[in-house]
C-alpha cells in the first residue's frame, strides 16, 4: 500500500469523513529542506467529518496526528491540515 493510501485509510477508519483529499505536495519542495528524495515528504490533507464538531483547532489537529500514528508521522516531513466539521 502506498503512503498516500496508508494516510487515506487511517483517516477514513478514524473519522468516516464526508470529504477527504490526500495531496502529495512533495514536488513543490524538491531540493528544499526536508526533501529526502522519496517523493513522499510533503503532504496536504483536506478532511471534513462531523467527528470534529466542537473540538478546538489544536484538538482537531491532535486527533488527526493520533489517527495517523507515529509510524506515518515519522516518515513524512511536512503535513498541512485543513480540518472542517460538517455537523
Amino acid at each position: 500500500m502506498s503512503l498516500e493510501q496508508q494516510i487515506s485509510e487511517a483517516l477514513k477508519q478514524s473519522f468516516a469523513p464526508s470529504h477527504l483529499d490526500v495531496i502529495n505536495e512533495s514536488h513543490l519542495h524538491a531540493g528544499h529542506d526536508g526533501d529526502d528524495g522519496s517523493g513522499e515528504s510533503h503532504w496536504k490533507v483536506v478532511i471534513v467529518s462531523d467527528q470534529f464538531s466542537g473540538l478546538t483547532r489544536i484538538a482537531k489537529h491532535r486527533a488527526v496526528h493520533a489517527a495517523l500514528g507515529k509510524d506515518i508521522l515519522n516518515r513524512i516531513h511536512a503535513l498541512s491540515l485543513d480540518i472542517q466539521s460538517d455537523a
Partner: protein
Amino acid sequence: MSAQDQIKEIVTTNDVVLFMKGTKTMPQCGFSSRVAGVLNFMGVEYSDINVLADDEIRQGIKDYSDWPTIPQLYVKGEFVGGCDIITEMTLSGELDTMLEENGVAFDKEAADKIREANA
C-alpha cells in the same frame, strides 16, 4: 539543564516565542517563514528560537507540546499552534483576540491588511 527545562524556561520568561527553522529575519522553511512573516508584519515583539541550531531543542519542542511539526508559537507559556492554525487564526481574527486577551501589542491595521489581501 535538560532540553525540557530549557524550553519551559524559554516559554515562561518570554511573552511570545516562535520555535522555527531559521530566524525571523532569515527563515529556512516555508512554514516557519509564513508564521514569522505574519508576526513581523503585525509588529508583534517575539523571541525566535532556531531549532536548526540545536538538535535537542528541535526534538525537545516536539515532545514538550506533543506536536510533531515546526513552527510552534507560544504565548504566555501556552502553545497556540503551528502554521495551519496560526494562518487560520490570523484570517479569522482569532489571533487578534488572543493577543489582546494576553496583553500583547500588535498593529491592528496591519492585521486587517493581511485579511483584506486574503479575502
